[in-house]
């Protein structure tokens, strides 16, 4: 076989064709453009690169992007758990409807969810009015960014937890209960350890997506420098100002973070598989 050196020989045809096509497509669509970004960033003298990355406005945007993504992922870990629990454990009339709704943030164009949130949380909106009366403003504040990211991250947490919760052995719970364990004890000692890898996977996925999100946030964040400006937006602003060096530096930083998040996701999923044989989600 022509490709015996690379691949284990197989009777099935088409390895050369499909492998070649996959690799060339990936190189043209992914590797070449990413290489352009990395090379562009390294053309900047190291001192300048560091200066661009630690620019006050950039640091403020990292703080918002990472902080809001972490808070949103935590909120999703708690409420996503409750939603997943209800979907897996309880039988109620609107279960199918609720299940379908979880995928809405995936299916909706990001701009639509952004506009929808801005509409309802703006001081004149349905919820914004009530919240304004209580002295809380969501739209055009950092809180708005968190709300938008909660919406983005919810499906990741719920979907990975649903699979894991369905895998929890009810026999073990029944056994524990018959031995006198209370509800909380069963939850902490049996359910939580089983679904912990899935929870971690969902959290990491939600966090990773949250960092890079742009479309749904720009509508609700207000986009004030130093206050409600996320890193992806700052990249777009630099690009529009033809400040290619700053855009390249920030883009390189975000790319490096994405790589690390991808490694983290793989590590978390690998940990879960080793621990319990839980299937990876998406």
């Amino acid at each position: 076989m022509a490709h015996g050196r690379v691949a284990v020989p197989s009777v099935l045809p088409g390895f050369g064709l499909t492998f070649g096509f996959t690799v060339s497509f990936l190189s043209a669509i992914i590797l070449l453009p990413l290489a352009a970004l990395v090379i562009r960033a390294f053309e900047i003298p190291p001192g300048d690169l560091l200066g661009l990355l630690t620019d006050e406005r950039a640091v403020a945007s990292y703080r918002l992007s990472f902080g809001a993504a972490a808070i949103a992922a935590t909120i999703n870990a708690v409420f996503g758990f409750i939603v997943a629990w209800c979907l897996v454990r309880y039988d109620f009339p609107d279960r199918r409807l609720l299940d379908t709704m979880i995928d809405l943030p995936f299916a909706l164009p990001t701009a639509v969810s952004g506009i929808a949130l801005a509409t309802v949380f703006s001081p004149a909106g349905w919820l914004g009015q009530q919240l304004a009366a209580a002295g809380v403003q969501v739209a055009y504040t950092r809180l708005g960014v968190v709300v938008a990211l909660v919406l983005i991250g919810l499906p990741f947490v719920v979907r990975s937890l649903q699979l894991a919760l369905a895998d929890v052995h009810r026999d073990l719970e029944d056994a524990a209960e018959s031995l006198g364990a209370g509800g909380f004890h069963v939850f902490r000692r049996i359910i939580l350890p089983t679904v912990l890898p899935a929870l971690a996977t969902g959290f990491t996925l939600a966090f990773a997506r949250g960092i890079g999100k742009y479309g749904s946030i720009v509508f609700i964040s207000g986009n004030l420098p130093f206050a409600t400006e996320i890193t992806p937006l700052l990249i777009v602003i630099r690009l529009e100002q033809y400040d290619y060096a700053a855009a390249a530096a920030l883009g390189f930083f975000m790319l490096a973070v994405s790589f690390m998040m991808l490694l983290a996701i793989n590590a978390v999923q690998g940990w879960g598989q080793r621990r319990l044989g839980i299937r990876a989600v998406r």
Partner: protein
Amino acid sequence: MAAGGGTSAELRTMTRGSRVTRALLLAVSFAFLGLLLLAPLGAVLAQAFAKGVGAWYSSLAEPDTLASIRLTLLTAAIVVPVNTLFGIAAAWAIARFEFRGKSLLVTLIDLPLAISPVIAGLVLVFVFGAHGWFGGWLIERGIHVIFAVTGIVLATIFISFPYVARELIPLMQQRGSDDEVAALSLGARPWTTSCASRCRRSAGDCCTA
């Protein structure tokens, strides 16, 4: 009956305490999703139809709107077949053969899912923009990528091509290659081995972009 009114068989086996927990958790779930998902979507729908269906239709029929819808559909029509082709090729290579660097290949396919859409646009500017690697050469020859349909299509391919491959790889791995080996051994030609592709996700994402 507890809130939500589940099946009576389920409720009968529950203790009073767990019925309260159930009602509480369901209430929290519905409140959370209602505030986060339904209220915003309802607000958008209400606003879209606030001036009646006629006003909605006439704003939809504006030339700008129609042009943008046409562009979105055109982009999807180009991107979905390209991504499906790539997805099938990648899934076949990955699910059916053992080769060195396989996990690296899978990671690379996943990469666009982890990368911010803004980065996808940025890298295309660096390659095809006026000061990019090929941008100057292409623009001299009258081919514009950035601020043109080609750029939109490329960016959409970039962010959505993992979906088909990601759906197909587990599917093909699960089914195993026994069927195909059997078909081949019985004299079937390679093309008769069927490939069910699921490009729904991909199509959805094209509209998103």
